[in-house]
């Protein structure tokens, strides 16, 4: 196993770990944490594998395109977190609940 593959596997492990937490935990803040960890895992796959690219002459520089994509992803993640937290705080103010409740209807 090489270093890029190693980190990609760590990323995959984070994704699965976060998916478990997302399903199991009811508290909405915890779900937000889980989604953040999951996105970190996806980013780790993206960047980790990018390290396979460098040739012999430029061994240090990773592929810049996945880096730019992950930067975009990080900003999207913080926007999602901010929006989700605003909605969750509002739900708490209205109902006192910090979970979704079971009103799915089926």
């Amino acid at each position, binding site marked *: 196993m*090489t270093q*890029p*593959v190693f980190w*990609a*596997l760590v990323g*995959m*492990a984070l*994704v*699965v770990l976060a*998916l*478990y937490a*997302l*399903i*199991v*935990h*009811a*508290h909405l803040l*915890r*779900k937000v944490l889980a989604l953040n960890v999951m996105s970190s895992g996806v980013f780790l*796959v993206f960047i980790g*594998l*990018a390290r*396979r*690219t*460098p*040739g012999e002459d*430029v061994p240090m*520089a*990773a*592929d*810049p*395109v*996945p*880096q*730019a*994509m992950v*930067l*975009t992803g*990080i*900003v*999207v993640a*913080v*926007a*999602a977190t*901010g*929006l989700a*937290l*605003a*909605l969750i*705080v*509002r739900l708490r*103010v209205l109902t006192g609940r910090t*979970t*979704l*409740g*079971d009103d*799915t209807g089926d």
Partner: protein
Amino acid sequence: MMLRPRTDRQAGPASSARADKGLPPAARALLVLALLAVFAGLVLAVLSLSEPAPGLAAAVDERIDESGVSHPVTAVLLNFRGYDTLLELVVLVLAVMGAWSVGRARGCAGNVPGPLLRQLPRLMAPLMVLVAGYLLWVGAHAPGGAFQAGSLLGGVGILLCLSGYPLPGWANGPALRVSAVLGVAVFAALGVVAALLPGGAPLDWPPAQAKTLILTIELAAMLSIGVVLAALFAGGRP
């Protein structure tokens, strides 16, 4: 199903393991098995990838002289794949709109800081603004750029808010809205103008002006990112 909510009304307030009571053990075991299977598939996929790998590092290297900047990540973010970055700024503005649509912020003036928080902004805020400016400038040829700089500015806003620093009235009105959308507006306007030039395409920066255009966009984007992040911290419309 996956996000099916689970309220555990029985769990007492002091219960430390509320979540653990949400799923019956059998379902939990099934879930763990299913996720292990997913993980195995993901591992298999990663291991099957060849090495050395295809990528765009060489392609970026080849065209970077036409991009207006010498740092490859900035070149990708603001030139080669600038459209992604534009949409990403839209995502930030959208998050603020969404947060504002559900409620008002309690305001920062009500925060009563401790002695440390009262002093911290005096020291930190100017320094952070300075570092943000440096990061923005250096982004053209080294790691750094609008996002890192903008989040530092956002940090300044958060510090000021925590320390109960009263924002001037104008900062809560139209000026706030204008600075939140400035990044998108400048980026999109320049992008459309570029399309109207003869032989141009949307967001197609002429190599001679590319550096100026990119710095202009980054400056506006930095300001917007800072304002948006601070506004998200405030948690609602002013």
